[in-house]
């Protein structure tokens, strides 16, 4: 039984090895890129919309609303990163309805890569929005004693992000594989449906958590300023 698409080697040439993870990641990327290129090729601003443009507008507006609600900030700068994370994970999980497809998010390598993206994006957004000193002050926020805990928290939440997504998707795959060998035909279908729901929720949660982490790095300055204003006025 294969519990991860990492174990399946599709193509091997010398030192070059393509596992199913990489192949399916490329497939998802190609599907999303070509799909969005086809849709955004001829955008209209009139009242007559193509139905695909309507769909994409609904998705983008929904993501913007969610970001605004979670971070209490304007979504413009965060939309490319957080939206891409959500759409990639959601597409990768939802494509499970295609026979023979193995979700690349069911491999710890993919989820670790996504979590490292978040790990790198948090200081990047923090420094761009507030400057390096204000971001670094964030680590010693209550006192100097909290410095090691803040650093450990930053690393451990990255690991948690990766293992959470991996565990959820992998458990769905393993459950279906076990059920197919025990009670074929009906129960695996139900569990697959549950897996689709789980995949969608996990994509949402990954994006929301990434947004929360980034917002906690970028909003400290505003909070500090608000406290200073309160102090001046009183």
């Amino acid at each position: 039984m294969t519990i991860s698409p990492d174990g399946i080697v599709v193509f091997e040439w010398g030192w070059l090895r393509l596992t199913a993870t990489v192949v399916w990641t490329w497939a998802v990327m190609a599907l999303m890129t070509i799909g969005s290129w086809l849709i955004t090729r001829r955008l209209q601003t009139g009242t007559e919309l193509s139905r695909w443009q309507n769909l994409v507008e609904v998705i983008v507006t929904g993501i913007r609303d969610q970001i605004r609600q979670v971070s209490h900030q304007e979504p413009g700068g965060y939309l490319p990163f957080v939206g891409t994370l959500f759409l990639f994970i959601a597409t990768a999980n939802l494509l499970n309805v295609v026979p023979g497809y193995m979700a690349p998010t069911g491999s710890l390598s993919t989820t670790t890569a996504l979590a490292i993206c978040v790990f790198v994006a948090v200081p990047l957004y923090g420094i761009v929005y507030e400057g390096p000193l204000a971001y670094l002050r964030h680590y010693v926020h209550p006192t100097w004693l909290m410095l090691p805990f803040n650093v450990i928290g930053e690393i451990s939440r990255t690991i948690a992000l990766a293992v959470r997504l991996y565990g959820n998707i992998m458990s769905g795959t393993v459950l279906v594989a076990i059920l197919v060998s025990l009670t074929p035909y009906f129960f695996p279908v139900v569990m697959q449906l549950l897996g689709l729901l789980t995949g969608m929720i996990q994509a949402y949660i990954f994006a929301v958590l990434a947004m929360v982490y980034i917002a906690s790095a970028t909003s400290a300055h505003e909070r500090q300023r608000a406290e200073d204003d309160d102090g001046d006025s009183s």
Partner: protein
Amino acid sequence: MEGLSLIGMVSVITAGITIAIGSIGPALGEARAVDRALAAIAQQPDESATITRTLFVGLAMIESTAIYCFVVAMILIFANPFWNALSQAAGS
């Protein structure tokens, strides 16, 4: 082979105990979270969107402890490093 079968036995038993104990805590925690969220939605139906979003994120955070236990159990059963090392030593 004595050591190998001992490792296999301990791994299987530990995997079972891991997932058994590891699912009790998150089950109780999620029950409490859903309980409070339902009560909050019943009191303030207007805020149900915010409560539901926070509930889902919270449930995922709680559930991740059970997922860690599941991953550990899977590693013990399917990718046990001690088993692999010992069976390689026995094979060579």
